[in-house]
């Protein structure tokens, strides 16, 4: 089991060591919140959510937090893709490492990266004036939801990357999945304000349920999110987690 921690350590070392990380970590939330949210605040000063009227910055802070977690989650599989591409997976498989340790280590690092990215956006949102219901209970509950989002989006990243073997395909798949998922969700706008087609898509999109579950806690002030949002998010997380574990351990072929 300790080997899973070594895999996690290595993945984090690679992540923190890259200039890419520092750039994305600091710039991405700034772009979404500092530029987009503050500019939109003039056009859409208030948004209604869960019976409460909140500033657009408050509303979108949660959306950007979840989106940031989603984006870094789908990218969390990148190390798997790189290892498959460079052949490092082969070195790992020729070692005494157990397959489940490798899968667990990957999931742990996906969770950590995604959680850190989500929290960085949340912190940035608070800095620019998001009014969130912060208490010990909401922090605990919010962190749990963010972990759930991180795990499911990290698992989604592993699902995407497990079988991809070329950078061209990787880019194509990422571009096809990421932007449409973000903009067909309730991350940036409330579901009720979306046109009919987008509203239908948003109701099928796990990102919407992740954003709304976190809003239920940090905006509405519930300890447990709306049961529908929560149960869909939990179901999606479980399915993604199981599928990622199954798919990845099947890709890791050895005797």
């Amino acid at each position, binding site marked *: 089991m300790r*080997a899973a921690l*070594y895999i996690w350590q290595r993945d984090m*070392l*690679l992540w923190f060591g890259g200039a890419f990380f520092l750039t994305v970590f600091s710039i991405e939330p700034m772009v979404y919140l500092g530029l987009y949210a503050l500019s939109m605040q003039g056009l859409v000063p208030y948004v209604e959510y869960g019976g409460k009227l909140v500033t657009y910055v408050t509303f979108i802070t949660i959306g950007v937090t979840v989106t940031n977690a989603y984006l870094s989650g789908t990218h969390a599989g990148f190390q798997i893709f790189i290892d498959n591409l460079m052949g490092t997976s082969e070195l790992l498989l020729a070692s*005494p490492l157990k397959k489940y340790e490798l899968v667990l280590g990957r999931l742990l690092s996906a969770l950590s990266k995604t959680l850190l990215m989500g929290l960085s956006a949340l912190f940035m949102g608070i800095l620019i004036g998001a009014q969130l219901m912060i208490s010990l209970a909401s922090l605990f509950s919010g962190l749990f939801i963010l972990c759930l989002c991180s795990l499911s989006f990290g698992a989604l990243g592993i699902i995407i990357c497990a079988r991809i073997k070329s950078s061209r395909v990787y880019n194509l798949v990422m571009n096809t999945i990421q932007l449409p998922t973000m903009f067909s969700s309730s991350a940036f706008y409330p579901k009720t304000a979306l046109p009919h087609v987008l509203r239908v898509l948003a109701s099928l999109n796990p990102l919407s349920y992740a954003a709304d579950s976190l809003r239920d806690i940090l905006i509405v002030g519930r300890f447990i999110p709306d049961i529908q949002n929560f149960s869909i998010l939990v179901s999606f997380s479980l399915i993604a987690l199981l599928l990622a574990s199954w798919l990845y351990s099947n890709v890791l072929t*050895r*005797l």
Partner: protein
Amino acid sequence: MSISARGLTKSFGKTEAVKNVSFDVQEGAIFGFLGPNGAGKTTTIKMLSTLLKPTSGTAFVAGFDILRESDRVRRLIGLVPQRPLMDSELTVIQNLRFYSKIYQVKYRERRISEVLDIMGMGDHKAKKMWQLSEGYKKRAEVARSLLNEPRVLFLDEPTTGLDPIARRTVWDIIRKIVRDHGTTIFLTTHYMEEAEELSDTVAIIDNGKIKTSGDPSMLIDSIQGEWVLKIITQNPPELMTCTSRIISEKRMEDDTEYRLRAANREDAVKTLANLFGDGISIKNLEIRRPNLEDVFIQYVKEL
């Protein structure tokens, strides 16, 4: 025996990459596995190092069955792949620390220092892998493979892409590992000089089948008593009348390279005279005793 393969076969769909291969490697010996590209060398290494499941047959590595005791095999082997596979963004020491943890190496830092010393890499340990020359990348890979003090070390074309000096350094390191630690080496290469220089035993594989195996000097002796004439000519093949003497024929852009067999020195001179008599103009000529390359060519017609 350190490695004992019996009827190893691997098919990918309808293609049989390795066909019913059997061989034994003694403990502490260097076994050279020779073959042209695509002959089945890497597939064999992957089966022996538990990365690929044989379609049929099995093998024992370090005394354990690769099929039933793959976990134990993995603990006792080291693998140096054809190209460097360690993380290029991490330093040499970071990579070694990671793999020493994965292999549960006792007294990690001491062992890392030892392998760095063996490979002469002490001054390069803080460099990222991408900052190293090809020769040092290869050394770093060998250092990693030695962390767990393997009983069997698989070296898949360890000197491909290295300059002659770096190549000789790797040879010295391989000899040192065997001499000091009694490690068994399974070496694939397509450099005949390398195999002849290092191996106690060689096997020549082509098209998935082992064509011959044995002590390199014995294999050379098997075509001993014969001399080899290597000529390069621009003349068309129709002019060659001594077809029964041709060992191999290799077409190049404007020329053709022939290796011809002669029974002894006098016969070699006579053959040469015949060639001139036939009107063959010779651009380049080499008359010598056979070497492992000639054995290889005899069994693998295309180089």
